[in-house]
């Protein structure tokens, strides 16, 4: 077996490095002992030993060889070394310049590395599955409807049986298992997966072997996600075979998957989907399209298109075969990677947003480069005499250019090293403020990131070092020597170069500012969205009645009533109520029939307790809300929201019919009643464009498997959550995971992406503005210094300080104006990439453009003023004497 051969790389290392005549004997002897050790202590220990031997042998041999190798290659590096030493010496002489340059570079490179680390982890790295391109998720879909729907178990079975394009196809169902811990009960979301799941996924394991086809008798086993294993079990290496206590029995740990194996992301572990589980959740109904996923691995010799065509054919066959459940239903494919990045189909712009941020931080680095190039140019100019002397002493033009480039490379390298540290810190800061990103565990500084850092460091060095380097080589020797390096300062080329650098800086900063301005405005629009309810001082707590004690819907309804009463009695609570889902906390649909409307439609389905609308702060527009008397098992009164009323033109008193949505008690039985009230429509998130239609039924009609209790408190006092929790547990201590949450916070979370993007872009723009201001100051100060003589002459001839001011500021304004024009043009072109990130704001929003340009101009004028003011203080006599 190949396993009994020592590690090949190790042997190769030995062969390459050992110089002794006994080399082959050493290798053979080591191999012999290696085999003996496998038998004695196992392959891992043997390999470890072998590597130790190799490393011990390599050390001394390398040392003796290194001398020879160094001697061979010494010429080039020694040259370079000398150059680098020279650079260090000259940088030491101008420590201020070096410090500023290195800090600027470290921040620029660090920020870029940090953002790239996130982009790399989330978007670029392949998923940790074998041949990930062949993995697809299959969804149910309605014709002429772009949304994706969850597949039902029987549909999945038919797809699997009737297609040949797939190597494996697996079904996934999500539900919570309730863990018994020392602190009480804790619900853990688990993915029930069918036999082929792990084979289809093609993921590596860290420990153990994941289950395959499992009978009901062996159903109680789990495969843990890596993170869960680390967090909950402290990475226990002997976890496999141990049992975990859940409320429905003890489960054996079968395996731990490798780091990064995270599909489906909402689950924290996997358990087998056995026939009994399928029955328990009523999954055999073909129209039960709920809480499920289908994962498939396309055969390597079949294209995705062919596979989709085959599957679509099967779907049409099913449509003909089961018209009651499958009419108008077809299938849709999405690559697994797409789903991983966008699990709910609401995040299509994530990719775009991340790239926009990467581009933005890249612009910041460009601006920093412009600043550095300006500094370097000034340095070259002030060193003009030194350069001229060296040139006169025979230093070639190329050598002088190389020296300046080496200087920028050394600066960039130092900046990159510090930048890598900044990046580590930056990634943490980014993630702390970031919304929940997919694949967040895979975000880390790895080889690709370091390669990127090295790449941008070199690129940066060339960008800011090129112009000064060429300037070094191109000087006129005679003039430089003749006037002691003073007049050469005024060389037209340098000035023009510096000014165009500042102009492009202003342009780039303006682009960033406009981007940040647009995002900020968009965020403002979002925060002004009318949710239709008042989330302030609203607390929600999700209730999951323990099973099987509360399997009977009547018992459940009774529990809910007692819970609401208990919570309402907590001091400081103004009102309490309950619903199956509150806005933003999930939703379920029911078919809807309306008296006098031929077509059946779909509506949101909400089961609520009395005082729900009052507690939530939802307006009752017409009719009346539910009262305690309405809470019966049969009802004749239903409430609808304004969206639905307007959409179908429904008035009070009209008879409508929805259908029961709880699996274990007459799913699909009609609930019929007159409209007794119309209430305001609510949005489920701040960024939702149109409120959905809703029908409200008394919770007693269809007691939900779980419920959300909402309470409105008088004040947002601390400890109210604790009191609510205690009240809930005093009614039923077996309810797991009782965690009161602030609804306002949850709502705020729905715009966390937008907030994050705006904040990040804002800080980039701020840095850009600051850097540009510094750049402008540098150039203006320099221009004034250089024109001191001219200004002195003018003042001697009677120019007022006002005129002098005009002269200097006019020059500055010309630069700023040109920069603004360049920036506006670039922004017009670039902001359209941000369309998907904006809410209620056009990319050409003139107000934003105008106000941001105003800010830029004002900020740009400040650094102009100081040198200009100085210019007016010029003593004409002194300057004239100097001439």
């Amino acid at each position: 077996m190949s396993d009994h051969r020592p590690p090949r790389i190790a042997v190769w290392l030995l062969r390459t490095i050992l110089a002794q005549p006994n080399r082959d004997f050493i290798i053979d002897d080591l191999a012999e002992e290696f085999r003996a050790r496998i038998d004695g202590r196992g392959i891992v220990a043997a390999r470890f030993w072998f590597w130790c031997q190799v490393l011990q042998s390599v050390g001394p041999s390398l040392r003796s060889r290194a001398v020879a190798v160094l001697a061979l290659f010494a010429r080039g590096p020694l040259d370079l070394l000398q150059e680098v030493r020279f650079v260090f010496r000259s940088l030491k002489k101008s420590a201020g310049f070096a410090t500023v340059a290195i800090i600027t570079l470290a921040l620029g490179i660090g920020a870029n590395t940090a953002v790239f680390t996130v982009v790399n982890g989330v978007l670029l790295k392949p998923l940790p599955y074998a041949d990930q391109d062949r993995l697809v998720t299959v969804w149910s879909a309605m014709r002429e409807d772009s949304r994706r729907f969850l597949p039902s178990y029987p549909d999945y079975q038919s797809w699997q049986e009737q297609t040949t394009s797939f190597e494996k196809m697996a079904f996934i169902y999500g539900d919570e298992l309730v863990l018994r811990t020392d602190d009480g009960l804790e619900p853990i979301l688990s993915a029930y997966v069918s036999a082929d799941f792990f084979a289809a996924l093609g993921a590596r394991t860290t420990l153990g072997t994941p289950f395959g086809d499992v009978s009901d008798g062996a159903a109680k086993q789990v495969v843990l996600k890596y993170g869960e294993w680390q967090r909950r079990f402290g990475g226990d290496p002997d976890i496999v075979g141990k049992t975990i206590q859940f409320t429905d029995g003890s489960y054996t740990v079968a395996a731990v998957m490798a780091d990064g194996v995270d599909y489906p992301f909402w689950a924290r572990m996997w358990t087998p989907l056995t026939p009994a589980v399928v029955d328990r959740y009523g999954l055999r109904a073909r129209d039960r399209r709920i809480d499920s996923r289908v994962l498939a691995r396309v055969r390597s010799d079949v294209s995705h298109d062919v596979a989709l065509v085959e599957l679509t054919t099967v779907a049409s066959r099913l449509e003909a075969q089961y018209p009651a459940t499958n009419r108008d239903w077809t299938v849709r494919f999405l690559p697994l990677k797409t789903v991983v990045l966008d699990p709910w189909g609401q995040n299509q712009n994530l990719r775009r947003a991340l790239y926009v941020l990467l581009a933005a931080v890249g612009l910041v680095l460009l601006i920093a480069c412009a600043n550095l190039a300006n500094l370097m140019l000034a340095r070259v100019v002030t060193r003009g005499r030194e350069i001229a002397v060296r040139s006169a002493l025979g230093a070639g033009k190329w050598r002088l250019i190389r020296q300046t480039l080496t200087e920028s490379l050394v600066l960039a390298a130092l900046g990159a090293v510090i930048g890598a540290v900044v990046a580590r810190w930056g990634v943490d800061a980014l993630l702390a403020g970031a919304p929940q990103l997919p694949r967040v565990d895979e975000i880390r500084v790895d080889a690709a990131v370091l390669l990127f850092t090295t790449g941008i460091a070199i690129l940066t060095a060339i960008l800011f070092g090129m112009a000064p380097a060429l300037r070094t080589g191109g000087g006129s020797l005679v003039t430089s020597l003749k006037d002691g390096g003073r007049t050469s300062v005024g060389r037209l080329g340098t000035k023009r170069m510096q000014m165009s650098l500042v102009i492009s800086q202003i342009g780039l900063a303006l682009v960033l500012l406009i981007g940040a301005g647009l995002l900020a405005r968009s965020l403002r629009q979002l925060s002004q969205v009318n949710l239709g309810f008042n989330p302030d001082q609203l607390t929600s707590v999700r209730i999951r009645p323990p099973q099987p004690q509360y399997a009977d819907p009547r018992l459940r309804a009774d529990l809910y009533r007692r819970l609401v009463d208990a919570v309402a009695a907590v001091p400081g609570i103004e009102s309490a109520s309950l619903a199956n889902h509150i806005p933003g906390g999930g939703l379920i649909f029911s078919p809807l029939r309306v008296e006098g409307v031929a077509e059946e439609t779909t509506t949101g389905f909400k089961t609520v307790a009395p005082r729900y609308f009052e507690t939530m702060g939802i307006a009752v527009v017409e009719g009346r809300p539910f009262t305690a008397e309405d809470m019966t098992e049969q009802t004749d009164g239903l409430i609808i929201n304004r969206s639905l009323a307007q959409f179908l033109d429904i008035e009070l008193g009209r008879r409508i019919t929805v259908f029961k949505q709880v699996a274990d008690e007459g799913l699909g039985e009609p609930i019929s009643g007159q409209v007794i009230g119309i209430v305001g429509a609510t949005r489920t998130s701040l960024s939702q464009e149109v409120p959905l239609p809703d029908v409200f039924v008394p919770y007693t009609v269809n007691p939900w498997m779980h419920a959300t209790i909402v309470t409105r408190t008088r004040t947002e006092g601390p400890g109210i959550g604790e009191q609510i929790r205690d009240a809930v547990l005093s009614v039923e201590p077996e309810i797991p995971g009782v965690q009161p949450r602030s609804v306002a916070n949850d709502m705020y979370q729905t715009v966390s992406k937008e907030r994050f993007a705006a904040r990040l872009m804002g800080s980039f723009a701020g840095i850009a503005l600051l850097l540009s201001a510094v750049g402008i100051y540098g150039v203006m100060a320099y221009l004034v210094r250089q024109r001191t003589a001219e200004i002195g002459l003018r003042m001697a001839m009677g120019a007022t300080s006002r005129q002098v001011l005009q002269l200097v500021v006019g020059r500055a304004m010309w630069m700023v104006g040109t920069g603004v024009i360049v920036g506006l043009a670039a922004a017009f072109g670039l902001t359209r990439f941000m369309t998907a990130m904006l809410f209620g704001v056009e990319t050409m929003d003139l107000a934003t453009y105008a106000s941001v340009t105003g800010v830029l101009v004002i900020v740009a004028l400040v650094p102009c003023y100081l040198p200009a003011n100085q210019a007016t203080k010029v003593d004409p006599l002194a300057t004239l004497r100097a001439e």
Partner: protein
Amino acid sequence: MTSRDGLNEVDQLVLLALVRLGPGAYGVTIRAEIEARSAKPISMAAVYSALDRLEKRELAESWLSEPKPERGGRAKKHFRITAAGAAELRDARGVMARMWEGLEMHPDLRIR
């Protein structure tokens, strides 16, 4: 090159192992013997560099075994100590013994 250069510690350990192992001495057994008795890890490369040194000074000599099928048809290189080696080893021991003389009970060398 003849002796009079002294022996370093590894040389002594290797030579002693050769004596102990007799005709069974080759890389694997020498290394194992030293590790087992001295309880100090030693790398194969270090063993061989000592052997190489000793062979050049004619303090040890080597001979090749029959080709072994379990080593892919390659021979083992066996080593044994030469008379000069034995003399050198004794010499080294004598040096140490003389240095130790009367120091066994010295207060600075107490095991604390």
